[in-house]
């Protein structure tokens, strides 16, 4: 008893000293509030324990039938997705042989977003099709010392899969998982699996019309999912810390549900993305979506298709800025596939549509007349016009240089 007392006194003295030195003025967080009731997790969440050589791990399982609807999309729709579209989007041919039944949908909840070795994963959700159902398993760490047990059981499951689908997993979930595995001293089993990170296609397809690319925004605006009683992501670490301190699990239910919904959304989102890319004309919600699909084909240098979709996009009702953007890319796609006349038409159209001076179409036209048509008079005319209108010093320099060259060729 005395021992404890002297220990406490020592800590108190140290605290005083530390406070004086560092002049801590911040409000003290009250730790371990006494009147908190301890509520075990199994009283709040139906789950079971998996035992491992490193202790046991708490897991919740949920099953869904393929006709379960996630917004407007049924989970089972994903079986109609052509693997070619995925391998095209990921640019990884291994996806050509992808089997949805060997694919894991994965999302983690963590003690922070900063990354680094002090960020822990306390909940890992893995969804997968099994038999006629979609199963979601959620592995939970009841306290820090269960980390090894968690990753050990997780390994048993992940060993079954060849591919993984995440949202921002490339930058966040997977590196963090790898890091946690290393610290736990367990060999991460599916490090070599191939990975479809949905954040990248989402950015390419919808960035222009979404407020941001957070999964919750995509759910709301693209998948039309309404979440009820959801926990905002930024509160998650705090809730977990509070649970660690109080051992009161009552706040954890919504947290498990949040993670579960993320995983279901991943499945729906794969269908949504692939349907749009495969058949934009019938699946697009607006012209900009078709334009975005066009850009995806542009990136793989399929100008036939990209210029087709650009032209289709232009048929929709669009703002002036949007039209100019599309015309610019469309003109370049035409140029690259050798359809110069059409490109020329578009450059002229840009000049006509935009009252302010834009350098781009003038430069393209000048290049076209000078190098392609070798029509130096036309080239000179367009450069002179640009010189009259431009105010940018770099552009003026370039234009003058070009003009001199054209003139020397005229002679």
């Amino acid at each position, binding site marked *: 008893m005395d021992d404890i007392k002297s220990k406490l006194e020592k800590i108190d003295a140290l605290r005083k000293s530390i406070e004086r030195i560092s002049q801590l003025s911040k409000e003290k967080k009250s*730790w371990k509030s006494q009147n908190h009731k301890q509520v075990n997790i199994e009283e709040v969440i139906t789950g079971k324990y998996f035992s491992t050589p490193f202790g046991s791990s708490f897991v919740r399982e949920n099953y869904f039938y393929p006709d379960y609807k996630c917004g407007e999309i049924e989970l089972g729709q994903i079986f109609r997705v052509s693997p070619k579209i995925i391998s095209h989007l990921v640019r990884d041919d291994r996806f050509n042989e992808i089997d949805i039944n060997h694919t894991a949908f994965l999302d983690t909840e963590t003690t922070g977003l900063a990354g680094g070795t002090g960020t822990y994963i306390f909940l890992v959700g893995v969804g997968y099709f099994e038999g006629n159902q979609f199963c979601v398993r959620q592995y939970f760490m009841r306290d820090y010392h269960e980390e090894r047990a968690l990753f050990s059981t997780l390994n048993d499951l992940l060993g079954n899969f060849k591919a993984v689908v995440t949202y921002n997993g490339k930058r966040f979930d997977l590196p963090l998982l790898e890091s946690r595995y290393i610290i736990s001293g367990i060999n991460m089993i599916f490090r070599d699996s191939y990975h479809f990170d949905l954040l990248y296609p989402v950015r390419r397809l919808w960035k222009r019309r979404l407020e941001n690319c957070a999964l919750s925004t995509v759910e709301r605006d693209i998948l039309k999912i309404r979440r009820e009683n959801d926990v905002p992501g930024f509160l998650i670490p705090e809730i977990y810390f509070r649970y660690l301190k109080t051992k009161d699990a009552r706040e954890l239910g919504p947290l498990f549900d949040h993670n579960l919904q993320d995983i279901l959304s991943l499945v729906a989102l794969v269908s949504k993305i692939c349907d749009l890319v495969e058949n934009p004309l019938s699946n697009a919600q607006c012209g900009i979506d078709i334009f975005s699909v066009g850009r995806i084909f542009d990136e793989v240098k399929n100008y036939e298709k990209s210029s087709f979709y650009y032209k289709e996009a232009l048929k929709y009702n669009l703002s002036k800025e949007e039209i100019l953007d599309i015309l610019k890319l469309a003109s370049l796609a035409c140029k690259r596939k050798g359809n110069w006349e059409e490109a020329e038409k578009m450059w002229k159209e840009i000049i006509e549509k935009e009252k302010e001076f834009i350098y781009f179409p003038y430069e393209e036209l000048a290049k076209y007349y000078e190098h392609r048509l070798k029509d130096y008079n036309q080239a000179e005319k367009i450069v002179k016009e640009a010189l009259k209108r431009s105010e940018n010093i770099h552009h003026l320099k370039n234009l003058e240089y070009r003009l001199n060259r054209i003139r020397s060729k005229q002679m």
Partner: protein
Amino acid sequence: MTQIERALQEMKKHPKISSCLTAWEYLPSKSAVYEEFPDWIEDRLVKILSRKGINRLYSHQSSALQSIRKGDNVVVVTPTASGKTLCYNLPVLDSILKDKESRAIYLFPTKALSQDQLTELYQLVSDLDAGIRTYTYDGDTPSSARQAIRKQGHIVITNPDMLHLGILPHHTKWLELFRNLKYIVIDEIHVYRGVFGSHVANVIRRLKRICRFYGSSPQFICCSATIANPLELAQKMVGERFVLVNNNGAPQGEKYFLFYNPPVINKELGIRKSLVKEVARFVAYFLNYDIQTIIFSRSRLTTEVLTSYLKDFLNKTGRPKEIVRGYRGGYLPDLRREIEKGLKSGEIKGVVSTNALELGIDIGQLDACFIAGYPGTISSTWQQAGRAGRRSDTSLAMLIASSNPLDQFMINHPDYFFGESPESGVIDPDNLSILINHIQCASFELPFEEEEDFGVKKLHEILEYLEKEGVLHYIEKKWYWMSETYPTEKVSLRSVSLENFVIIDTTEPLEQVIGEVDKESVPMMIYEGAIYIHEGEQYSIQKLDYPGKRAYAKRVKVDYYTEAQAQTDIKVLEVLESSPEERIEHSYGKVKITTHTTCFKKIKFYTHENIGFGEISLPPEEMFTTAYWLSLNIDMGVIWRKYEIETSSFNLGSGLLALANVLINVVPIYVMCDPQDIKTVPEVRSPFMDKPTIYIYDNYSGGVGFSEKMFEIRKILLQAALELIQSCGCEKGCPSCVGPIDEVGIKGKESALIILKEVLD
């Protein structure tokens, strides 16, 4: 006869010069002491070295190798250019050749040094052609290259800040490195002194802890400039036993070390000829003899002014201006590389530098070195002087004094300089405030275990404290990090921020960044109206965008430069504890230090006359820290009657200043810090205490606990101060005790003694 000797002989003939020389020291040449390569060194390595003309080792290199082979940690202390880097490059490369998996970390205090080291190492490695990969990893490393470095780098060259911020908190990404780490090299270890050093020592503790986790136990190889206690510093820094290697076997040419005191030009006012002009004259003279010269100046401003003068001189004598260059922090890396190369190739004949070139950047060895103003420590002075001195030829080092009291003392007491041992490097890794920060960082990296040893006695209590604070969570005998925050971000190893302001030249329509300045120097260098001199060109600062960290400048041609005036005030905010005694009152508490730059002077080139003022409208820089202060409770009237009238030996102002200076010499020993870590403010009548008072404050935002410690050991400090003054052999004052007479006055020493005797009675 060498060019240097010819030049010196000629110079000696001028009575005006020779009468100002206060020391003419001759340091004889030393021949090399060689030893054979040990037989266990890989043949491949010996072969490529012999292709470079290295067929044997110097004695110190050989000793270092033997100790390292035995498994000892080694600290090598030899002069500049004695082949120190081979002491670590050899064992490191040898170990990688023997085992492809071996890894090493090299730590350098600055990015510039890392870059320089990489160039040298790269040469060796490409000659070896054995697939050894070396990389620098610092803030400039592009993120695309980082992954390859983490996985494949055999030798990773970095700095303590990057280790602290970028590597340790992400140790899992460095799996290969930490699993196979054989050597940790800490070069220029003497730089890690005081608070900075105490931080670095804790970063090393964290590093060792991570190594233990991955099952490696690397050996340490440290190098240091000449300081009084290299072995002790290394052992404290690393927390392990070391072997000292200092049997320098490198040859040295003979060297002249001269002290020059500019002549008095105004006897009444005691004004001496300008330091800058005198230095410029000497350098011009030596340039005429085609002697390659380095000039060290104490500030960036003097560096630029001197460069301008020398370029003017070259212009007048019809020689290319490019053979003299400036060199200082703030030049962009490419420009620095170019200057270093020019020096090595000999194209550049003179370089004017701040202490940026004091550390081991490879610029080859030059013929002559001019030190414009005493650098502040004996150790630095020798470092700078070491920049001149080829292995066989004669070289020259010359210290030219400013009128600053410390300079005047040194220049007039050469025996003191040549006889005194250089300064000690003091660190305190267990400083509570520093320690607690790093224990948090370490907890983030890996949970602490019950039985773990961090080299700290109070570890358990601190962990329990952090647990109570809710930062750590204790379960099953381990403390885990329980916060969303990233603790390393809040802990800076250095007092100066790494934030830089850029200077943009807007003279041409194409704007261009010409240099950068750290945040602390902004009020002194790039206020609106300042003349910023860069490579001898003048720029007028037109606009300072403080939040945007940019200054916009236009090239100008004016006949003056500008100098900002700063004023420091101390204000007591809260007394934490005080102990009033009969004749003295000791206190410590929270204070606010305000530094305000309010105006600048325009100073004409060459005549150095003041030709105008300008206002600076920058917000004052405020620092909240802790201070210890002592106030005298003695009836001055009594003292005056007792001493002033009878012996006329007492002056309060001198006494306070003298006592403050003594305390600056005494305190670091007892609170284990560097003299730079604390600052004093003596006030004859403190507005707060209403009495004569000396404040000593922690020169770190937030304070690091020195003030509390000073308060605790106040009696010991005063006793030590008394003993120091009494035992000092000087008559009226010197830098070892109360400071030079020119600074504290003729009555300073005596008055300080009287005060101490009165209060200690």
